[in-house]
């Protein structure tokens, strides 16, 4: 039977999580030959409030394109974490920004806490690339798409002129994930 892998990216509006979702989906679908969908849900209004972006990756048809049984959930804010944890599957991965999300919800899942935003500011001097760092981490942790594919997808989707910093951010994410794995051992997937 076809596999179905669900990623939910959550945070607040304007954090660039829709872009991350699109890049991830494009990497899977265009470069890795899988099927993928990306969808999002906005706050009460077009901007602000908790927001989420979801990617479903499968080698078969994807009917329902919303996450129900999440493999990996990224939460960049506490509000998003509290609101969107519900559909994380048993044993799934909760990836949080270790500084923004301080109250980790109860539940049967694996927690990966990394100072994503801080790394963006400190290592790249740009708050704005937090999203791509998160993408790197997810790529590494999930193993669902190849790094090369994601790299190509980043190049095709980010604004002209920002390719390099975003690629650097992506590898920063991969590195942070690797470090975490080195320190905490492999995830159960």
């Amino acid at each position: 039977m076809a596999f179905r892998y669900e990623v939910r990216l959550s945070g607040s509006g304007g954090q660039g999580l829709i872009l991350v979702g699109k890049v991830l989906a494009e990497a899977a679908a265009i470069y890795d030959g899988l099927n993928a969908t990306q969808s999002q849900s906005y706050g009460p209004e077009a901007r602000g409030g908790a927001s989420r972006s979801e990617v479903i990756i499968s080698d078969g048809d994807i009917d329902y394109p919303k996450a129900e049984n999440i493999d990996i959930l990224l939460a960049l804010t506490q509000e998003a974490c509290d609101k969107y944890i519900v559909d994380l599957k048993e044993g799934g991965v909760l990836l949080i920004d270790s500084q923004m999300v301080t109250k980790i919800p109860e539940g049967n899942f694996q927690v990966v806490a990394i100072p994503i935003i801080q790394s963006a500011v400190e290592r790249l001097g740009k708050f704005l690339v937090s999203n791509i760092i998160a993408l790197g981490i997810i790529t590494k942790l999930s193993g669902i798409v190849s790094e090369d594919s994601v790299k190509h997808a980043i190049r095709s989707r980010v604004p002209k002129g920002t390719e390099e910093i975003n690629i650097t951010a992506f590898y920063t994410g991969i590195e942070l994930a690797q470090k975490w794995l080195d320190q905490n051992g492999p995830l159960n997937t």
Partner: protein
Amino acid sequence: METPNPNVKMWQGNVACAEAALAAGCRFFAGYPITPSTEIAEVLSRRLPMVGGNFIQMEDEIAAMGATIGASLGGAKAMTATSGPGFSLKQENIGFAVMAEVPCVIVNVQRGGPSTGLPTHAAQGEVMQSRWGTHGDHPIIVLSPCSVRETYDMTVRAFNLAEKYRTPVILLSDELVGHLTEKVEVPPIEQLGIVNRKKPLVSPDKYLPYELNESDIPAMANFGDGYRYHVTGLAHDETGFPTNNPEKIQVQLERLNRKIDRYRDDIVEIETHYTEDADILVISFGSTARSARRAVINAREKGIKAGLLRLKTIWPFPDREIEEISAPVRKIIVAEMNLGQIAHEVEWATRRSKPVVRVNKINGEPITPNEIFNAIIAQD
């Protein structure tokens, strides 16, 4: 990593709609921004000038609909796109396009209603409005896509049907499909079967713009083609001029309605899954049909004989297809993000002869496969 196929795109539904319009030959778009349809305008504002076409943002939706009709009369394949509130505003001019038989495509990417409602959330609340939103008796064609690829195909089909039947066609999408990014293998243009309006073959002095001919579809001259005729929203006769003669009016209005009715088999499209031996039939359309499909597959995996009937054409309503396919089933489930607009028509089609269970949701959240599955397995 594989070498990507350049024809494979990761597109949003709205982007696919815009690109398909270009492929279908659309060279004019008039719009007014509204969530969640705006991307269609945004893409076309960039893309149309590249192909020598024209994009214009009008002062409101009424003007956008008017300009679309004007452009079509000028010879361009023309489109406009909007969502709920804008769709309500366009209704008067949609009626004009129906009455004057001006081909054009109107996209409604549905969001939560009524009123301003839920601008960023999906709904399917305009099934009935797309049929009856403008005043007076009139026919209309409405198509509803469930995926990004189908948005592409149906947009092309909408143009083709509009040109073929000289009528406005409504593409009834929804926020979920419109904003969903999904893989699309763009078909080669030769495969699209592009249809263009039938031009008059007679000389201008013999031209009857609303001719009662054998096909019921009069040929259409563009303004400037040398046929100088009159177009009006008043009741008119074959010449296009207003008339008060009851007989002439009756035959024209009958032809107008028959023009769609008699070709309904060409227009109506449905899709079925596992219906051959089903004893529970799920009926759905648009984005909700995706959940329905999964629910049916899940049910089959549990050994339950569920089947899916997906409506691709909403109007003319696939009543005969529904009646036939549902004949052997024990129960029908209609899943839709409204309060039962399609369900009511399904009941009509099936003479309320068997239970029609409604799975409805109007709070902005999509209907999940599980909710439909639960309806399938419910004892009733």
